[in-house]
């Protein structure tokens, strides 16, 4: 099996491929990847990503490296700790990694499997199908993230971890699926990070201290369990370092998003997908992520200088809620239709998030940060505030509310109510598009093409009517 071209496409040099060969061979065998998969990947990757950009290639390389690291971690003498996608609070696993990088490998394996197997090889849905026969059946709208992890364990694509930290701070399905994994499929009993989605309607900009303290104590308990297992101490300094690492990653992403104010945009929003999801995953190569984002920023700036257009000039700007991690074709279709997808609800800080913290110390501040997040606190009024502020900041022409049908959090956030509020209060058109961010099994960008193109037409007609 010759994977040289694939790894070169993902930014490896020939000598590096040769050096990594034993690890690659072992991992690819475990993942049942063969020649046909390599050929498919060589076609899939350029469709999904702009591989002319070396920053993008660097991100893809990091994803491949991290999957190899995950699969071989135990064989290579490390303890393995899993979180649960999307990995919030991301700083938890990052703090463990920072405290003992030589002893432990931390990952949200479902994100690694999803991103690499689907975005690169287009074969991730096999795992979803396996999970459907092992406790998360078809037709019940089970979360495809949980299905990916379950499928990965059943197929032995990923090892059973030494410690499972289940981050149910806004999600019910993840803890339910993790408990099943521990009871039926040999997972260790998870340590749960709990939270209650009980903010009252008028509390969105003042999080009660008891909520902050509860979440902080939950995170601390997970860190304590990791301490015990690894025989190390995870201090407030490690938590602070983790916060800084994540902030630097986010800052890199936001800098690139900042260039989207240019018309035309220099790169596709879809090319930011690998970076967005590296924020959520505690990668060993954190510095490489930051470096790659700097490279991509420079490349995007050079493109602006050259007048390069990743979407037609004069494209309309729409707020975009969430980037899928296995199929970014929705973004490409929208851009071709003349829409620029700006920002994501989970990343862009509203004013309430930027207010001074009300608590002291990295752990409490971390908890407060998460509870102030529009998406993570799972709270409709904060999402309204996000749309209000972000649409003003980016002078948005509309809102593209893309949501994952099998996510109860996103369903409860209620795009239908939000559409009513956005149209009534802000006068902006809204496209609600149902999809699956982690599987292409039931949904695809192509299936939504007509609706996206029609939405673009509506926005153009509306803008033209306004200017006349």
């Amino acid at each position, binding site marked *: 099996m010759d994977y040289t071209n694939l790894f070169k496409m993902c930014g490896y040099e020939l000598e590096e491929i040769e050096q990594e060969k034993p690890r690659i061979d072992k991992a690819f065998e475990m993942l049942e990847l063969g020649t046909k998969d390599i050929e498919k990947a060589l076609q899939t990757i350029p469709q999904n990503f702009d591989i002319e950009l070396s920053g993008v290639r660097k991100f893809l390389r990091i994803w491949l490296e991290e999957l190899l690291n995950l699969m071989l971690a135990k064989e290579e003498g490390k303890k393995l700790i899993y979180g649960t996608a999307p990995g919030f609070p991301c700083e938890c696993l990052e703090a463990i990694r920072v405290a003992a990088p030589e002893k432990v490998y931390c990952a949200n394996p479902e994100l690694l499997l999803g991103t690499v197997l689907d975005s690169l090889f287009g074969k991730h849905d096999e795992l979803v199908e396996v999970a459907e026969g092992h406790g998360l059946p078809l037709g019940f709208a089970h979360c495809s993230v949980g299905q990916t992890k379950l499928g990965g364990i059943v197929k032995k694509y990923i090892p059973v971890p030494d410690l499972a930290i289940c981050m149910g701070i806004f999600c019910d399905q993840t803890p339910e699926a993790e408990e099943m994994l521990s*009871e039926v499929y040999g997972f260790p009993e998870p340590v*749960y990070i*709990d939270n209650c989605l009980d903010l009252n309607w008028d509390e969105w900009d003042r999080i009660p201290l008891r909520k902050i303290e509860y979440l902080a104590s939950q995170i601390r308990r997970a860190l304590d369990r990791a301490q015990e297992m690894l025989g190390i101490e995870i201090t407030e300094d490690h938590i602070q370092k983790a916060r800084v690492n994540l902030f630097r990653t986010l800052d890199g992403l936001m800098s690139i998003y900042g260039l989207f104010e240019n018309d035309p945009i220099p790169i596709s929003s879809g090319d930011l997908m690998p970076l967005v999801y590296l924020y959520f995953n505690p990668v060993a190569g954190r510095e490489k992520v930051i470096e790659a984002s700097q490279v991509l920023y420079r490349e995007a700036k050079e493109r602006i200088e050259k007048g390069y257009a990743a979407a037609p000039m004069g494209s309309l700007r729409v707020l975009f809620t969430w980037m899928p991690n296995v199929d970014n074709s929705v973004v490409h279709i929208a851009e071709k239709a003349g829409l620029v997808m700006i920002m994501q609800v989970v990343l862009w800080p509203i004013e309430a998030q930027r207010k001074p913290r009300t608590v002291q110390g990295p752990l409490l501040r971390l908890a407060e940060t998460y509870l102030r997040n529009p998406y993570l606190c799972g709270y409709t009024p904060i999402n309204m505030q996000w749309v209000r502020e972000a649409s003003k900041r980016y002078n948005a022409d509309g809102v593209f509310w893309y949501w994952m049908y099998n996510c109860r959090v996103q369903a*409860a956030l209620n795009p239908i109510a939000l559409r009513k509020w956005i149209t009534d209060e802000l006068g902006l058109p809204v496209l609600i598009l149902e999809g699956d961010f982690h599987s292409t099994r039931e949904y695809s960008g192509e299936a939504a093409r007509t609706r996206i193109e029609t939405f673009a037409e509506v926005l153009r007609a509306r803008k033209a009517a306004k200017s006349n």
Partner: protein
Amino acid sequence: MEAMQRLEEHLRTRVDELTKIKKEGGKVIGYLPGGYMPEELVYACGAMPIQLIRGGDPEPVAISAGYVPRFLDTFCRSQIGYKILGDEPLYELIDLLVAPVTDNNMRAIADCWNFYTDVEVFRYGVPHTKDDLGFNYYLDGLNLLKEKLESFTGTRIEDEKLREAVALSNRMRELFREVSLMRKSERSPISSRDFTKLNHASFHADRSIMLEVLESLAKELKMREASDPSGPRVLFTGSTLAMGDHKILDLLEASGAQIVIEYFDEGLRDYWENVANDGDLMKALADSYFMKKIPGPYFRPSRERLDFILKLARDFKVDGILWYQLMYRDGADIQSYRFSQILKKESDIPMLKLQSDWDIAGEIGPFRTRIEAFVETMGRR
């Protein structure tokens, strides 16, 4: 049964009675099911509690699609649908909706009532782990609820009133337990349909009348000549058994099976534990309604729930288990798989799983076929 007739007469006039109470300045406090809202607090401030428990109808499910995404639990979508349709008179009487938030499905009800109606909503959290942190968080929530009820009704909740409310609620739990346990015997004196009806009624009936009905029913049942045992004994369990959702009960009983015990997180009164009526009452409520309560599937871990259902199956000597869940209630579905694995390992009791979206016309035929086959299978064992 005379007691049941008395109850039915009372329920026929209940809406009028509550309307009159409201006109005289009384408050009606609606609350979400799940067993985490101590109604004692509502009674202690002189208000009337009403649990949102109506269900089984297809129209509210259908209309909810214009207001909330369809990938939420059927019962929860219905609670939005009933309110939008305005055809459940009890819901129209509610002045304040109390929402103990257990999961995203319950949160959606609270959010939709906030967004689409004028009813004020008060939320407090139900932590998902039974430990000191969770207990204290839940207790904090109860104290906030107490404050809210006091300010909303303008009545201070005195210890004496609360103690009295706890005593009456304890008596109700005892009576439900007494009646339920009678079904352990080979000859069950009350059908599951009637027992369920009593449960549902207790969520909005006048408490003193409900207690009288239960007292006299318990006496009646003790003296009653129970019919000969017939058909396999079934444990009926799942996520929600709403008031009006009786198609499975009817089909099972029509197929010759007898349901001898039910366990649902939503729709049945949690009658297994009393609240300690001495010492710090708020702590006692939290202890009973959180620490001692059998946890829902959204708890972490939630194995205690499955062990309890298995214990019920053994104690009531059932021949089979019917697991009935509503569409898109993820926790119930994941637990059904785990439970089937546990059953395979630890007992030889067969289980049938059914899922409904309250599409009565479309579901009834396939349900009947599956239930009849299940009853036949149990009969051959």
